[in-house]
Structures are given as C-alpha cells and as structure tokens.
C-alpha cells in the first residue's frame, strides 16, 4: 500500500475546503481525481506536497506507512512525492538547467546517490527534453519565465521525468494543452509506470484518461469523495456531467 489518505480535513484562512477525504492509492496504480471547479482538487495536491498556508485540522496521510503530514516539503520530495503544479511558478534569475540539477542533486543526496556534475546532468536533461519534444533552449532560459502555458506544463513533466518520483500528483497538467501536448504528458507518466510507482491525476477531462488509463476514478465535490469507480466512471461523467452525479449522491 503506497498512499493512504484517511478522513482528511484541511482548509486555508480558517475556511474548510477538504471535509473528510479517504482515498488509498496502492503502489503500481494510477488513480484519477475528477470534480467541478472549487471542489478541493488543487487543495488536496497542495496539502499532499506540504504547502504551509494550508492547515490540516483532522485526519491523516501516510506514504509507505510514514506520516506524510509531519514531513517538510523537501522531505516529501526526497521520499518520492512529486506535485506537477497547475500554475507552475516563475523563478526570474534562476536558470532552468541549474534549477533542475539542484533539485535532482538534492534528491540524489538523500538517496545516497552521487551528485551529477554539470556535464553529466546536461547530457541526461537533453536526452529527456528530446524525448518530451522540448526545445534545448528551454534548459537555458530562466525557470518558467516567458514560457507559454504549454511549455510550463512540459517543464513540469521534464522535472518529473528527471526526479523519477514514486508518487506523482498531476494537478490539471492537461488543461490548456492540445492533443499532441496531451500525449506528451501521458507518455511522461506512462514511462514511469512500474510496480513501485503510483500517480494521482487531477483532471477535468476524459481526454487525458484515454491515454493514461487509470485503475480507479474518484469524484470530488464540495470537499468530499462522492463516487469512486473503475475507468468507466470517467466516461459516465463525460456523458452526464457532475451535476447529475451530485444529484444522485445527495
């Protein structure tokens, strides 16, 4: 069992957004999390990655039996958790290659692996970038500065490919992407698939799930999981919408 979320309540500025969420994502599985805007999907991603301004008021989250909520964000990353941001952050003055190498070496250190020098790293990063159909100059530019929406999302996927997480949380990484870019995101996740890798894919659309077939689909509404099911649930949602589902749940 990899990720276990049990009765999680969390909010920001005193407003409760997650109202008792329980999901288990076993190792080797990909789960999709769907739901209308404002249902708490991004909040869940942030809480799992350890963003400090979100407050957990009740419940627990464990990752391989370890209390994830007690860990600093960098310790979660070292344990293998990766959040692909819905709105990747711009870092003016920080070169992308330098950023990626710093992150990779920080994680390699905690794994007891030797750090990569600039040459070794660039070779690896260029190969990954090529696989993701990213132009070389994205490594030279400042992190996400002046990137188009699609380039930012690809940069998240590149980070994921390099850091090789054990749990990837993708927060609407597919939104705003055309079909080719969507396939790149899906390929990025599929390339990591192994018995030791799991993913929680937050999405609005069935489209991504055509390329990234999930083991389970969960539907979040108003801070609660209102339905869970197999991949067919995503198709049902596409046909009936969240409103029909919410009515049924009520």
């Amino acid at each position, binding site marked *: 069992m990899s990720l276990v979320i049990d009765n999680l309540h969390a909010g920001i500025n005193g407003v409760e957004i997650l109202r008792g969420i329980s999901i288990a994502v076993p190792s080797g599985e990909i789960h999709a999390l769907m739901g209308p805007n404002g249902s708490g999907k991004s909040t869940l991603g942030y809480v799992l990655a*350890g963003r400090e301004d979100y407050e957990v008021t009740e419940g627990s989250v464990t990752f391989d039996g370890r209390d994830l909520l007690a860990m600093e964000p*960098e310790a979660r990353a070292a344990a293998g958790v990766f959040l692909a941001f819905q709105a990747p*952050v711009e870092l003016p*003055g920080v070169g992308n290659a330098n*950023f990626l190498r710093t992150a990779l070496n*920080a994680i390699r250190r905690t794994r007891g692996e030797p750090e990569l020098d600039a040459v070794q790293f660039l070779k690896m990063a260029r190969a990954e970038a090529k696989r993701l159909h990213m132009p070389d100059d994205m490594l030279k530019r400042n992190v996400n500065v002046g990137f188009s929406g699609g380039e930012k999302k690809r940069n998240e996927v590149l980070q994921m490919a390099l*850091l090789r997480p054990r749990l990837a949380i993708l927060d609407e990484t597919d939104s705003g992407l055309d079909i080719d870019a969507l396939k790149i995101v899906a390929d990025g996740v599929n390339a990591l698939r192994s018995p030791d890798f799991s993913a929680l894919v937050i999405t609005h659309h069935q489209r991504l799930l055509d390329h990234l077939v999930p083991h389970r689909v969960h539907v979040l509404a108003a801070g609660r999981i209102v339905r869970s099911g197999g991949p067919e649930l995503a198709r049902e949602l596409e046909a009936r919408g969240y409103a029909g589902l919410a009515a049924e749940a009520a």
Partner: protein
Amino acid sequence: MSALEPTGVAGFLAHYEGLRARLPGDPTARAAAAELFRTLGLPGRRDEAWKYTNLRPLAEAAFHEPLSPVADHQVAEGIPRLAGSRLLFIDGRYRPDLSAPPAFFTAFADRPLLADLSDRAEQRMIALNTMLAEDGAVLDIPAGHEAGAVQIATIAAAAPGRATGVHPRHVVRLGAGARLVLILSNAGEGTYLHNEVADIVLAEGAHLTLLRVQDESRAAFHIATGVADIAAGATLDSFVLTLGGRMVRTEIHACLAGARAEAHLSAAQLLSGVQHADATTVVRHNAPECASRQTVKHVLTGRSRGVFQGRIEVARGAQKTDGYQMSQALLLSPDAEIDTKPELEIFADDVKCSHGATVGELDAEQMFYLRSRGVPEADARAILIRAFLAEALDAVPHEPTRAAMEAMIDAWWRKEAA
C-alpha cells in the same frame, strides 16, 4: 579610550596639527581643507543629504595613527587575487614589498595630487580626507592605452581598544580612449575609520570599470566618496558590493560633462546584525545625449538598515538625457529597514528619466516550488537571494571579480543561515 582624548572634529584637527609637518603635497591645500572642516564639522542629521545616516558614533570616537602592523604576509595572503597588477595598502600605507604595480602607478605619498574638490555636494568628508590623506594610488593612464585590470587591496588591523583612522586618496586619470578595470577590495579587523576619496577624471572616450568588494571589519566605519568627471563619449561603469562595516556610506558624484557620456552606478548591499549601509549617488547631466543607469539591490537581515539616495540633476542644455534608477530591497527580518530617496531635478525639456523602488520578502510560492522539488529550505532561500541579486551582478563585466563576489555572497548567506 581616555576621557581627555579629543573626539570627533577636535580629534581629527588635533591629528592634523600633529601630522601637518610631514604630510606630503601642497600645505596650503591642506590648511584650506582643515579650515573648511573646522567650520563645517562632520555631517549631522540636520543635513538633508545625511538624513538617514547618523554619524554620531563616528563623532564620539577617537581615531589614532595606525601602529606598524603585524603578520603582514599572512594578511596579504588572505585577500583574493582579482588581477595581475595588485597594489596592497596595509593600514593606509602602500606596501611595495607586497605589490605588483603597473607602470602607470605612483604612490600618492610620492605624487600627492590634491585636486580641489570643494565645490562638490559632499564637502565635509572630502575636506577631512584632503586634510589627512597620507597615501593612496595615483593611476595616470595615457591616451589610447588599454591598461587591463588593477586591484587596489586595503587591509586595516586595529588592536582592541585602539581605533585607527586612515584617509586613502586615490587619483585616477584616464587619457582619451584609455581603458582600465579598477578593483577595490577592502578588508580589516577591529575598529577603524576608512575615509577614502577617489578623484576620477575620464577624458573623451575613456572607459573606467570601477568595482568594489567591501568586506571591512563589522566594527569599521567605511566612508568612500568618489568624484568623477566624465568627458564626451566616456563611460564610468561602477559596481559596489557592500558586505562589511558597521557604518557605511558609499557616495559617488558623477558629472557627465560632454555629449554621450555614460555613468552606470550599481550596487548590492548585504547586511546583517546592526549594520548600516548607505549608497548615495549624484549624477549631474551637464551635456546632451548622456545616459545614466543604476540598479541598487539590498538584502537585509537582523536589525540592519539600508539606505539608497539617488539624485539625478539635468542641466538646461542636457537634452536627450536618458536616466534610469531602480532600488530593490529584500527584507529577510521584521526588524530590518530600508530608506529610499530618489530625487530628480530636471531643467531640460526633452529628457527620459525614470526611477522606481520595491521592498519585499522572499516569495512564499517560489519557496514552496523549490522545496517541493527537494531543495532544502536554506538552499532555496540562497537560490532566491542569488536570483534577486543576479540582475545587478550579471552587469559586473570582469569575470574573476564577479566570480569572487558570487562566492562571497554564498558564504555570507551560509553564515546567515547557520
């Protein structure tokens, strides 16, 4: 310090009386400076130009003649070598035995060029320097000469309980089309006053890159006043990194005297504890089509205080002036303080002058983004501080100096974060 010892203005004047018979150069220039200093005294808080920098601690101290230093060679070894030509000054004295001078160098003690700078806005600290200057570097570069890079390294070593005062006088003359990269590095131990004046004259088309790595003792007073006359088509490209000193004022007066002259006066100040550092600039556009550019960055922790005062004066005939000024402060502690005072005084009608100032903390989203990628908190902060300084540092045109500055900034942060 004995209660009978004269301090402040009286102390400096007493020092002058004891020293005057053996000071090099024109005694009437010294006497005139002494008279001016006696009349005007040290700058006080009622002076508008010194509103944010209170020199009272300096006025209350007594500064003595430095004694002959100890462990010269060891101290000299500790200074980073940033250029092949190196001029070492220990406690204000030129040390030929520890220097590798270029051909165009003369020690000020041997060639005491005391130009009259008394018409400048900051007369008092200049007068104090003119009254007491004993040594310094005179760099006289002939027209058309590509002079490469020269480092002036100063070291002060004051014994506990005995503050010392030095008043270096540097004279830099670049003939038409001459070029020089001049690196000033300042370091020391104990309590002392480093009251420096740099007298700079750039002839037509000359280019001076002036870089300072200021890492004085945390108990030192560091006051550096640069006065530059910049002729047509000439450029002064200056960058000051301030890390040291208890009380610091780096003041540059740049006069753009001929058409298409340029001044770039940028700085970065990294302060902690109770340090106070003031970067003051006055750019006078006296001719048409001149440009001035300034980017000043402050990183402040503890109870430190940063000051930026930037004044741009555009004379009536200085059409097509292009002036730009930006001060940005990163406050890493709730007790740190920044004061910014931009002043534009424009008498021409076809000019482009802009200025801006920002104050902020490290961005929480950027911090989280870095940490979520596994970067430890202290490293994430270091990355963002470096990124904040990058815009200013990237403009430092001398690679070895820029690399030394980057290493010192990293070391500064490692110490702060520890």
